[in-house]
């Protein structure tokens, strides 16, 4: 029987020799578009009008001063935490417990504010910032110590420490730090004015703690993109064997990665308790510590990309609030929206490091 040869196209992945700026931006746009497409389908199933939801997510937050101020307010902690986490992630150090480090930072700063409640000193806020950063870093430092000394996976320990931090907060606000005049509500007394961040936009909740996020961005940029220490971390993450051969210390990378993430998350905690909340209570963060993981990836783990990703994520948070009010979309939806964004980003990220080539393939067929 005569043999025929068919030339069939076949997809092949080729490693890119340099990163393509077009692909990086394209993948982010793809992730947003795909997420939105799935969201529309989901909403249709739930019987919500996609137009009203789109209005709530993208028009309402951007069309009022208050909406914009809320975006600024929520960009701050996301930006801070994501910058810190990205330092670790690029070094292959996986801190997923930023939520707990945020809580510990908030507790430490809050305890200080409560101890000096009647003080009008201008030093109180800087002291809270310092204490919060140190406390957050120390909490992450436990995981670093366990990783360096006992070889325990930081992925698991940072998560578990988050659970412990939350229970510690519950204990403190129902016990030692509860406001004696607060009718047994699980919350502390409100902080004095000297212990609060000033308003950034008058008559809104947006406050000057955003500056901490911008400062972290600057530091992260200089450290990761312009310093030898940052370069060592990146090499350790991309090529651990090469890093070891070059004598770059792995333990050092673990310490830097976790302490940077912990300090930034601790600062974010200060920003929350000394910002919109103004006291200690059971809920200090609507999941910023976890959302910031998504922000870090969506920003390509790059200090500049993270700025845009943080603003986008903040928009999602605020949009979620608006959607709850105007279209009664459940809050779970915001969580689904966030995770889909990361899912599609990861699915598309392939195209940032690889190029898809169509190559012909010969297939012999015997009829």
């Amino acid at each position: 029987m005569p043999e025929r040869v068919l030339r069939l196209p076949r997809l092949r992945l080729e490693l890119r020799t340099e990163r393509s700026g077009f692909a990086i931006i394209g993948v982010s746009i793809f992730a947003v578009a795909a997420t939105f497409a799935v969201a529309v389908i989901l909403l249709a199933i739930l019987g919500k009008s996609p137009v009203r939801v789109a209005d709530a997510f993208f028009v309402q937050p951007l069309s009022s001063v208050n909406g914009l101020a809320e975006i600024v307010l929520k960009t701050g902690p996301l930006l801070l935490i994501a910058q810190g986490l990205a330092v670790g992630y690029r070094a292959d150090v996986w801190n997923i417990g930023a939520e707990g480090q945020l809580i510990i930072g908030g507790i430490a700063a809050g305890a200080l504010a409560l101890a000096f409640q009647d003080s009008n000193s201008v030093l109180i806020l800087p002291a809270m910032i310092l204490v919060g950063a140190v406390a957050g870093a120390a909490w992450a430092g436990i995981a670093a110590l366990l990783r360096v000394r006992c070889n325990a996976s930081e992925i698991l320990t940072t998560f578990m420490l988050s659970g412990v931090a939350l229970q510690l907060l519950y204990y403190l606000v129902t016990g030692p730090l509860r406001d004696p005049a607060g009718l047994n509500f699980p919350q502390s007394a409100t902080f004095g004015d000297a212990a609060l961040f000033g308003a950034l936009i008058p008559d809104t909740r947006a406050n000057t703690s955003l500056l901490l996020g911008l400062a972290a961005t600057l530091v992260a940029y200089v450290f990761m993109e312009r310093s030898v220490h940052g370069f060592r971390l990146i090499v350790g993450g991309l090529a651990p064997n090469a890093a070891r051969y070059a004598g770059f210390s792995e333990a050092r990378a673990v310490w830097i990665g976790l302490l940077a993430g912990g300090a930034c998350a601790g600062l974010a905690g200060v920003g929350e308790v000394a910002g919109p909340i103004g006291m200690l209570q059971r809920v200090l963060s609507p999941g910023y510590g976890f959302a910031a993981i998504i922000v870090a990836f969506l920003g390509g783990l790059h200090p500049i990309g993270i700025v845009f990703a943080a603003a986008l994520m903040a928009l999602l948070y605020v949009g979620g609030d608006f959607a709850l009010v105007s279209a009664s979309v459940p809050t779970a939806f915001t969580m689904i929206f966030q995770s889909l964004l990361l899912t599609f980003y990861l699915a598309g990220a392939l195209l940032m490091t690889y190029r898809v080539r169509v190559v012909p393939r010969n297939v012999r067929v015997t009829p």
Partner: protein
Amino acid sequence: MFIILGTLGATTPLLFASLGEMVVERSGVLNLSIEGMMATGAAVAFAIATLTGSLTLGFAAGALAAALLSVIFGWLVLASLANQVAAGLAIGLLGLGVSALVGKPFEGNTIAGLGKLNIFGLAHVPVIGPILFGQDIMVYSGIALIVATTFLFKRTKLGLIIRAVGEAPTAARDIGYPVVRIRLCCIAFGGLMAGLGGAYLAIAYTALWAEGLVAGRGWIAVALVVFGSWTPLRIAIGVYVFGAISLLELSIQGLGIYIPSQFLSASPYIVTIVVLAFISRDAAYLRLNRPLALGKVFRSDG
């Protein structure tokens, strides 16, 4: 006595989830989305069981929903070559979101739980009767799963193939095994088990639905795989010891010794951290048991 009795039921979700995750990790994939998959399994199982009145359908639906999530995870890490930690977190969060959405109409509802069996009519024998012969069917299934996975990795060719894929995927591919397909099957199996574990939690153990029901068990399941050094029997021992410790605390409290409830809630995490640090100290032992390619991206044409 009471402790052993309660332990078996309380540990069944952990047993299913961690043995499922063990199979996934043995194939070289780290799936951190167990918590989210358990939550989805729990919510879907509760919803379906409530709507249809059938616990069997509930278990099936919960397991399938979680497996569906795990297949999305598999697509990310196997086809899109995504970082396994990031993909696990993404799908885990997705699972938590889905569970909150699905479970919302049922928040606070209860359900008639899974009936206890009476094997050989011996469940009423004092002391050992209820423990050995009077558990529900999922407890026995969990024990069967220990036996089955032990047999799989000790005695079967399939077990060897899965191990080869997890230790040396390139070599496994070169001798003709479809690495990606095998890994996908393992991931889906892990999803099914996590879903069953979650379903058991919602429709048998607590017999109620509340958001946050899983409460970190998915993460503890991942840690238990490390405790058990990727061996079914050792993982099972870890699961039961873990269950016994948490119930011991409850009985201490029952004796009237005051412990803040927050400490009780935090203690599973603290226990996990301490044990994890202790077990991981012996780096050589861990390296010997840990699948060599665990967490590494594999390109089938590379």
